[in-house]
């Protein structure tokens, strides 16, 4: 079933443009001040699982592709849940759950070509999945055995970046390099609604725009930056930030994997074709705590969280698959089994993850020899050896 979309963004409490604006400005500002003037939220699959068309973002998908996307969503969520429980069991020091953001990540992740490159925050486990990064790799830093440590160039998936916004500049620089290489790859820089306030993100917008770099800025607006709602970061919808820097911005339903796929695919192609950056705001929701250290009951109402449950990215695709008969029971059963397998593999993998040797401290401070590090390593080793002989204090 396919109907025309009439969806509008949830209205945010942005201050209306005040009456004192002279006409010339009211006019110039009109697209900013009247969110209803045009469709804001691009959607291809309603929360009820009804396929709708968007004139600008046509998408044709085979049943196999749809099942594959569904599989991604389910497995990513499963992995995430496993990690959360591993944290509770003390196997991880911390976990930043992506619960609720699976569609934004899988949709954008699957939009990438092999040669494209992703620069994640610390929450893009679903993108990592699409880039074929071993989920166990992601857990090293949360377990505390490393700070990431995978080879970003192996799967074109950069290391997790914790300092908010910093990676958007790395992404932009990488994209500038693509241009220099005359390659037709593109880059996605992930960041959050909170991150949009960081100077680095605006500087990335400036560099990308001035150098026309092939980078898609993909903002998962999950409504919260730890305890701060998006209204603490901006008084207008975030996708409009791009217009101030001279490139297009769009808001997509971040819980709609098809819309995220179509919009990101378009954005990447736009960028790789020499048209410069695009900002995609995936309007979604952080269903869980910020991290396992966080307690969201202190700052947000459960009704809000409840209200987003009906927009769940997985159940809407499942409803669609079922209504349209695109997947049978065997598919769901097999997926369930695969999911269990994944959980098991992750669980065992984490538990068997060895603690690093303490000399890791000295291993990669520099790529080339360094006298001070060498001395300190030697001192450390001599000191550690003094214990091995049993000579403790």
């Amino acid at each position, binding site marked *: 079933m396919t109907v025309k979309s009439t969806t509008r963004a949830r209205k945010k409490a942005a201050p209306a443009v005040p009456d004192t604006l002279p006409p010339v400005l009211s006019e110039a500002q009109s697209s900013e001040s009247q969110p209803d003037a045009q469709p804001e939220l691009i959607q291809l699959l309603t929360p009820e699982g009804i396929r709708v068309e968007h004139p600008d973002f046509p998408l044709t998908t085979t049943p196999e592709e749809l099942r594959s996307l569904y599989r991604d969503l389910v497995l990513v969520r499963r992995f995430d849940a496993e990690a959360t429980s591993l944290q509770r069991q003390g196997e991880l*020091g*911390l976990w930043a759950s992506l619960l609720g953001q699976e569609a934004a990540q899988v949709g954008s992740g699957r939009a990438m070509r092999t040669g494209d490159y992703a620069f994640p925050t*610390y929450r893009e486990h679903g993108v990592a999945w699409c880039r074929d990064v071993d989920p166990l790799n992601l857990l*090293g*830093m*949360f*377990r*505390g*055995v*490393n*700070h990431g440590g995978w080879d970003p160039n192996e799967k074109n998936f950069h290391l997790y970046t*914790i*300092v*908010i916004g910093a990676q958007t500049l790395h992404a932009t620089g990488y994209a500038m390099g693509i241009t220099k290489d005359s390659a037709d790859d593109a880059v996605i820089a992930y960041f959050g609604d*909170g*991150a949009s*306030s*960081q*100077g*680095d993100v605006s500087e990335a917008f400036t560099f990308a725009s001035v150098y026309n770099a092939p980078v898609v800025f993909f903002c998962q607006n999950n409504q919260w*930056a*730890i*305890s*701060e709602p998006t209204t*603490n*970061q901006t008084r207008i919808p975030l996708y409009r930030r791009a217009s101030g820097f001279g490139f297009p911005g769009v808001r997509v339903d971040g819980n709609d994997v098809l819309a995220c796929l179509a919009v990101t695919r378009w954005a990447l192609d736009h960028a790789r074709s020499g048209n410069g950056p695009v900002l995609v705001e995936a309007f979604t929701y952080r269903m869980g705590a910020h991290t396992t*250290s*966080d*307690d969201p009951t*202190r*700052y947000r109402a459960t009704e809000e969280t409840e209200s987003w449950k009906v927009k769940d990215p997985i159940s809407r695709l499942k409803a669609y698959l079922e209504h349209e008969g695109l997947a049978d029971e065997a598919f769901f059963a097999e997926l369930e089994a695969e999911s269990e397998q994944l959980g098991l593999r992750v669980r065992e993998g984490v538990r068997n993850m060895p*603690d*690093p*040797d*303490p000399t*890791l*401290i*000295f291993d990669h*401070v520099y790529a080339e020899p*360094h006298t*001070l*590090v060498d001395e*300190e390593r030697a001192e*450390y080793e001599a*000191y*550690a050896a*003094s*214990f091995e002989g049993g000579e*403790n*204090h």
Partner: protein
Amino acid sequence: MAGQLSIAKALNEALRKSLENDPKTLLMGEDIGKLGGVFRITDGLQKDFGEDRVIDTPLAESGIVGTAIGLALRGYRPVVEIQFDGFVYPAFDQIVSQLAKMHARALGHVKMPVTVRIPFAGGIGAVEHHSESHEAYFAHTAGLRVVTPSNAHDAHWMLRQAIASDDPVIFLEPKRRYWDKGEVGDSADLGLHSARVVRPGADATLIAYGPMVKVCQEAAAAAEEDGRRLEVVDLRSISPIDFATVEESVKRTGRAIVVHEAPVFMGLGSELAARITERCFYHLEAPVLRVGGYHAPYPPSRVEESYLPDLDRVLDAVDRALAF
């Protein structure tokens, strides 16, 4: 302040008192409102003092410090919270080029009563950027004052003194000690920049601050069993340093070991060693030794125990100092 308070609670009470006593005092930072900060140091304060005085800011550290400077120019007394040590660097320019220099730039015409609170140092099993000791950067920066308490009493009173100061103060909170409890006295018994001999001794002086004071106290207790009497000096203030107290102690003991989490290379220990040697040259039986972090990024938490100075490493240094 009745009874035993955790450092966290002692800080919270200090903020509350400062807000009560001076309507110009403001708190600014990320998640300090409803959440009460990720360490709950501002717990309950927004509820009691309102969103106008306990301000959840956009996620932008340069913006936080920069607007705090502007508020100070307007007569306010902002207390800024940086969420973790590793997130202060985006504000580095505002701190180093603006906050630290504004008073001098204005030939004294304006004051910068801004306190920057930073939970710092390691030992809590955290991910990257959450365990750093960057006091050396701030101590090297003229125009800033840098202090760090090691116990609840000092946490409370030093924070109140810092907020009352007309100069910018970098207030480093030893996050792994937040839940350590102690008696908080009824008044500040020392000036903000005085060191304190927290354990008397005659054989060598251990010099520490913030989270390492406890380690040194434990080391001194352990050494006592071996008949070694170690004096422990809690610096409390990193900039300026109370060298009078340090000098007096080292002249008595003849040996000094400085302990901090920050990398030894260019750390506080180097300044202490250099100046102690200048001031106590003929009293020193051994070079001032330093125990600290290695010249490496703060490591993953599963090996942080090997990075951080502990009782054994302190005693190893004591052995070496005494062997001279």
